[in-house]
């Protein structure tokens, strides 16, 4: 954790406070009383399956949607009552690759800067953003001429044009190539180190695992898990025992059959409960059944396993 974020954790103002938040779409109760806080300086992950309510939550935070009840504050400023202050503190990278086809990249950034009350004094920062995001060559290009990856970079620049304290990245790496994904990871990590609070929603769970210090998992409009990433990983009661057997035709003892996750040729994967299935007992059972083991690997749970377990979409 960076020095800046450590300082923020120790008592600075909370970046985002969500209280009793409700939202309905017709008869669908999209958000069912969401309550949590994102601390200043955090790299916070917001995960959940499609339709969990992540984008709705972000839209309410950004003022793009209205809550039916409850509130969101950004650095103490209510997003409805004090929307000017809250929006000045918030930068949002939308999920869709939206752009205004009438303007070039630099024109668009200058317009966005103007909406936030900045004039020519902000132009050097805009040029810096163009450089940092490798957009210098595209500064005069019309947005309709850019690739999807380039449009994503422009959206990030637009979100940062007013130097917000909190940056919301709504699935920023969806549909981008590996190289750009790595570049975006590095860029958001750098922003975080400089003190920006980052709120990330993503479908790539390894992304959240690698970047986020704390994670909230939403499912069907409710928070089903909220903790430090490491604690969430520890909470998952399973780990995987990956074996390579000498023969491709082994018969697993009946007592171990419920633990078999997959068996393809010589690759045998067992899912073991941390407390109920000691590795030594499992290996002994296999040896007693005459199974010759060539290689053993024990894989700790990944966020994906935790996610599937918590949302009930896994085997557990």
């Amino acid at each position, binding site marked *: 954790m960076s020095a800046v974020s450590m300082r923020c954790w120790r008592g600075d103002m909370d970046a985002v406070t969500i209280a009793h938040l409700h939202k309905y779409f017709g008869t669908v109760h999209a958000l069912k009383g969401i309550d949590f806080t994102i601390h200043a300086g955090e790299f916070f992950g917001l995960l959940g399956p499609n339709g969990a309510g992540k984008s709705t939550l972000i839209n309410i935070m950004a*003022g*793009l*949607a*209205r809550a039916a009840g409850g509130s969101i504050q950004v650095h103490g400023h209510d997003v409805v009552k004090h929307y000017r202050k809250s929006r000045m503190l918030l930068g949002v990278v*939308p999920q869709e690759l*939206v752009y*205004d086809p009438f303007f070039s990249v630099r024109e668009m950034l200058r317009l966005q800067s*103007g909406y936030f*009350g900045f004039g020519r004094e902000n132009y050097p920062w805009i040029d810096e953003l163009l450089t940092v995001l490798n957009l210098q060559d595209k500064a005069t290009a019309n947005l309709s001429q850019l690739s999807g990856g380039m449009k994503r970079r422009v959206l990030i620049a*637009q979100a940062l044009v007013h130097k917000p304290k909190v940056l919301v990245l709504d699935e920023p790496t969806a549909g981008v190539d590996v190289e750009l994904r790595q570049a975006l990871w590095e860029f958001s990590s750098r922003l975080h180190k400089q003190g920006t609070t980052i709120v990330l929603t993503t479908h790539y769970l390894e992304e959240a695992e690698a970047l986020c210090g704390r994670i909230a998992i939403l499912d069907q409009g409710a928070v089903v898990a909220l903790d430090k990433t490491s604690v969430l990983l520890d909470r998952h009661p399973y780990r995987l025992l990956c074996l390579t057997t000498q023969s491709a035709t082994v018969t697993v003892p009946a007592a171990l059959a419920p633990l078999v996750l997959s068996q393809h040729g010589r690759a045998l994967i067992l899912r073991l409960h941390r407390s109920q299935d000691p590795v030594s007992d499992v290996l002994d059972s296999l040896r007693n059944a005459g199974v010759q083991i060539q290689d053993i690997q024990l894989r700790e749970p990944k966020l994906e396993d935790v996610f599937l377990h918590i949302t009930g979409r896994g085997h557990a």
Partner: protein
Amino acid sequence: MNWRGFYTLFAKEVWRFMKVAVQTVLTPVVTAVLYLVVFAHVLEEHVQVYPGVTYTAFLIPGLIMMSVIQNAFANSSSSLIQSKMNGNIVFVLLAPISSLEFYLAFVLAAIARGVMVGVVLYAVALGFADLPVPHLGMLLAFGVLGSGLLGALGLIGGIWADKYDQLAAFQNFLILPLSFLSGVFYSLYSLSPFWQTVSRFNPFFYMIDGVRYGFLGVSDVSPYQSLWIISLFFIAISVVAWFMIERGYKLRR
């Protein structure tokens, strides 16, 4: 008040239509000139609406105002529907811009386009008739109020419409008939009493009649009465437009 934010949004709206000025300024001028050439050629010798005023001179103020209001409507409505369909409306919605600033920026840009089309058309029309402006103040008042009213109506249409064809219906079944049946090509008194009464419920009639007063010094009804009526309509439509923005109707879900 976020003055810079408001000004930027206004400037962006003007910049947007200036980037496609051939479509947004020159095309309506050409269309109006074609109306002028055809109708003036056919009717010049046969129709005299006001004593001492040629039909061409009678027609030009109405055509100018019809172009002004149609383009004012087109500016705000097309910008909004495009932004909604493209999704780039979020850039404005994410910014610390109030509903009043949003309303003012769009309406002032609509006035700018309407007035610009009017001025260019006036310059071209000078080639067809002598066009002194004895009541410049009245002319400006009707031009600004009329284009402001249609700019606000364009906001309502642009916010309400979910698809381009819904906006086209708004334009073709409301704006176009009201502007064509507003006395651009004829005097109110050439109509039967029934249609005279119906015309008096058409706010576009008062705009056309008021602008004609600005150019010719004659009108079917008192220009002050027209000014009052247009002002009331402008306020009413503006309140509706502002309220839709304030409530986030079809903008903030």
